[in-house]
């Protein structure tokens, strides 16, 4: 049925391999551990998948290898930091009803939002700073993306890929140093709303004994969020005229241009969209790991590996590879595995990338001849 | 004696039969043209000869040896050189360096680690390269970057690079495609001169009938992946099957 070399074959192989892998793992460590690790893998993979999706969008539409994409993720995270700092801007007022230990009236910091919305609403708003940052981050990220594309990337369409890598690498350094200058080098804790700070008893939810599979709420939310974002991007590309033109442009840029469609402007907007996806991924990531200035670079290296494993230029490939590698990574971190193969969790992603690149040069779902100069 | 012998070659791409039972034999020291309408499988056939593609079935013998399963550089070392449709030269290098590379390849084989010797001391290679550049009448351009030359000059250089290897068989893939009339005529003269003066067999794929009939001693007409006729130019000109293949069923 399947011709060798089509994305379908690799999908079939991947699916078969996954099923075999899960059966094996269930036999080895039991259902509970497998479920827990899969959950963990999906939430880890969410960030990879979203960043890789944006990278692929940019690569597929503009043909640019964007080493500054991790920096966009980081800027997104710092949008959340900025908003929560902004919301907690306070004035000092004297609270007559209370006294400090010397008997003087107590000075307390009252955030301005409390003045505007009242105490209870104000506290809630501050508590929900991270989700609120999504609204703030969308316009900021789209703007950043468009400025980046018009101001810099545009001039590199005709330059070799090596130049694109180098200039965006330089840009990434500049962006992260700017963030470091204003926000310092230390991680800035940015908690999730208190409603989501606990853990979900996932086992009990699906009818198993309670307390077997417990997983933090926010990570589950992160996965759901990623699924929604990815779904939205695909739906956008699939069902809107804009998306159709962009997909056509990804397939054959020149022909689309010959049709008299201004593809460049759409591609600029695509860049903005990709930046927004990365930024939103960054916003929602802040409660999982406190953001610092080099988080983007840390993710970028892995995300590139993800993109290459998925197949350069393939959107489904990027998403698939993101989740797959996330799952593999969390399985590799299990005690049972580490006892047999010490250190495997540190290298599993790279190892898989090397094997895939050597056996399936175009990645899991890549098209022929992309980026092989 | 046939220097190139293609027997029962088949090649499929998915559902498309690109080549079906192709038989072809090229006589030594002749100019053999392969013509046919677009999509007839000319380029596929050529790629099967030089190792870029491997036929599904059949055999390709060059000078009594099979070329199948060999890499392009190995086939080249056997004595087959190829000129591409768009000139493939070393654009970042000077014309002189371009010309020296095939001479090194001829002398040293596919790989040699001559990392300490100075290129400037390779007097023999330099002399050979100079004389070939003289023959191509581009010695005055020897210090130019190859990419900076005109298309016609690039084509001359590429042909010269192939000749510098002293191949037994020279394959040309539409060497005059996209060329102005004057450049085309220059190329025809050059190829004529090559086939007259050097011991080189030439196989040429061409669209331009003017070029084909000025050069070829034998012509194979390919249509839909199968050879229709093989004959001398005079016979081909009036052949009804050829007219049909080119002008469509109704002719």
């Amino acid at each position, binding site marked *: 049925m399947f011709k060798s070399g089509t994305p379908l074959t690799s999908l079939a192989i991947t699916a078969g391999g996954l099923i075999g892998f899960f059966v094996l793992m269930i036999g080895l460590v039991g259902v509970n551990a497998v479920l827990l690790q899969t959950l963990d893998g999906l939430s880890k993979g969410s960030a990879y998948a979203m960043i890789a999706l944006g990278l692929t969008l940019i690569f597929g539409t503009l043909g640019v290898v964007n080493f500054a994409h991790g920096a966009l993720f980081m800027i997104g995270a710092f949008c959340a930091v900025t908003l929560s700092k902004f919301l907690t801007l306070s004035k000092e007022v004297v609270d007559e009803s209370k006294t400090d230990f010397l008997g003087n009236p107590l000075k307390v910091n009252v955030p301005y939002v409390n003045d505007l919305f009242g105490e209870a609403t104000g506290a809630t708003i501050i508590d929900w700073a991270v989700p609120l940052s999504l609204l703030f981050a969308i316009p900021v990220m789209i703007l950043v993306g468009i400025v980046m594309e018009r101001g810099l990337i545009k001039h590199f369409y005709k330059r070799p890929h090596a130049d694109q*890598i180098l200039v965006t690498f330089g*840009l990434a350094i500049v962006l992260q140093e700017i963030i470091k200058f204003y926000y310092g080098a230390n991680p800035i804790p940015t908690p999730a709303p208190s409603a989501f700070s606990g853990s979900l008893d996932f086992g009990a939810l699906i009818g198993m004994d309670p307390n077997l599979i417990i997983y933090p709420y926010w990570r589950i939310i992160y996965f759901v969020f990623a699924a929604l974002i990815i779904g939205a991007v695909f739906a956008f590309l699939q069902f809107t005229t804009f998306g159709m033109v962009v997909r056509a442009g990804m397939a054959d840029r020149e022909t689309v241009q010959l049709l008299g469609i201004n593809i460049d402007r759409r591609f600029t907007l695509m860049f903005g969209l990709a930046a927004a996806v990365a930024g939103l991924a960054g916003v929602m990531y802040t409660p999982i790991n406190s953001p610092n200035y080099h988080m983007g670079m840390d993710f970028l290296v892995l995300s590139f590996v993800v993109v290459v494993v998925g197949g*350069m230029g393939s959107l489904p490939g990027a998403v698939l590879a993101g989740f797959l590698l996330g799952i593999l990574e969390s399985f590799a971190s299990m005690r049972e595995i580490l006892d047999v193969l010490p*250190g495997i969790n540190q290298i599993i992603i790279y190892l898989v990338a090397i094997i895939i690149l050597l056996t399936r040069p175009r990645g899991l779902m890549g098209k022929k001849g992309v980026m092989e100069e | 004696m046939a220097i190139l012998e293609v027997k029962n070659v088949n090649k499929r791409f998915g559902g498309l039969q690109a080549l079906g039972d192709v038989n072809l034999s090229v006589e030594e020291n002749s100019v053999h043209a392969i013509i046919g309408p677009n999509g007839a499988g000319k380029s596929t056939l050529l790629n099967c000869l030089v190792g870029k593609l491997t036929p599904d079935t059949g055999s390709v013998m060059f000078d009594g040896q099979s070329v199948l399963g060999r890499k392009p550089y190995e086939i*080249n070392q056997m004595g087959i050189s190829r000129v591409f449709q768009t000139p*493939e030269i070393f654009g970042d290098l000077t014309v002189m360096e371009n010309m020296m590379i095939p001479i090194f390849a001829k002398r040293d084989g596919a790989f040699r680690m001559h990392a300490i010797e100075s290129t400037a001391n390779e007097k023999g290679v330099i002399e050979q390269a100079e004389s070939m550049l003289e023959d191509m009448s581009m010695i005055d351009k020897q210090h130019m970057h190859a990419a900076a030359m005109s298309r016609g000059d690039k084509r001359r250089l590429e042909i010269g690079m192939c000749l510098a290897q002293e191949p037994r068989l020279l394959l040309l893939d539409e060497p005059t495609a996209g060329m102005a009339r004057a450049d085309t005529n220059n190329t025809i003269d050059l190829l004529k001169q090559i086939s007259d003066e050097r011991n080189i067999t030439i196989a040429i794929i061409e669209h331009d009938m003017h070029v084909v009939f000025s050069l070829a001693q034998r012509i194979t007409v390919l249509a839909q992946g199968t050879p229709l006729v093989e004959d001398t130019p005079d016979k081909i000109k009036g052949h009804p099957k050829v007219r049909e293949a080119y002008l469509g069923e109704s002719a």
Partner: protein
Amino acid sequence: MFGLNKKDFNLFLIVIALTMLAPFILNPFPAGSGMAQFNAGYPDLMQRFVIFGIFAIGFNILFGLTGYLSFGHAAFLGVGSYGAIWMMKLVTLNVIPAIIMGVIVSGVFALAIGFISLRRSGIYFSILTLAFAQMSYALAYSVLTPITGGETGLQIKPTDRPIFSNLEEGEIGRANLFGLDMRSSYELEVGNWAFTFNTGYYIAAIVMILAFYLSIRIFRSPFGTMLRAVKSNQTRMNYTGLNARPYTLAAFVISGMYAGLAGGLLVAMDTQVGPERMFWTASGEVVLMTILGGASTLIGPVLGAGLIKYMENILSKINKDILHQWFAFLPDGIEDFLVTIVYPFIGKGWHLTLGIIFMAVVIFLPGGLVEGGKRFMDFVKRKKSKTPPSDESAQSTPAE
């Protein structure tokens, strides 16, 4: 001379002169003066100049000639360092066997990694080398701790008793060259100036001169021409009867051995090594050095390495107080304003300056500092040779 043409020979002489006189050239300001902080003529930094120069020269043999962009070259530097330090810990404190060991180990390592990575080209090659380097780093950091010392790395300890050494009880071994201590220095004071001549630096400098000489020979050899042919057009290469793979692999291994040489020298100077030497940012740094100076030029990588190491060590030391001193002659308001503007670019922010310079080079000067120098010289020459009428001079400006 030495098999070099006149131009290359002159360049070689300049490099020899610069490296041998570096203690003078890099210390132009009198000690104790306000400008003394810009002096780079102290042994530690000078050693880094030449050692990272070697690293970049080697990287350029791969990237500059073949166009293969390796993003994992620091792995070879690290592996070479580990090889060298084990040689010192176990066999002898003489630096020559240690350096040779570093070169051999990284050469073998490069052969293995290159053999696999070079099956792909373009960005796939870059990602493969990056993946291998990150794996090496992760392993050196964790599982391979018995060999690599893990996070703390390896140093020469009082308990280390190399076979060929006659250390006294409890004496910590020191790197030497046939008894000549790497850390020994001769101080020369001329008036207010102080110059330091350090054994380690001169040994590293001589090695760099040799490495530079070898790279000129490679650039000018038929092998070098073949490597440039790989970069230019692999299709034509294949159809000219040349097998590109062994050429690129040879370049990769040579380049890896250069990295190992640099790694071995680093160990010879400070007798320690840690896994962070293999982290991908270190690989990125050598890319920056090479591009900044000028890829595929002979001298470019050395200049780039020097510039980056200078910025890392000198620019990063400038702080707010020093800025205030500089701008003290200005009215207070302007002084504060200027300090505020400049401050983000110096001290801990030196990476920002580096990033901006690097971007500017990639955008406007793809040939790096060397091309910049060339354009400047052309400009000066044109001015000198004639003072043309204004319309002509406008025309002669390169339209780029």
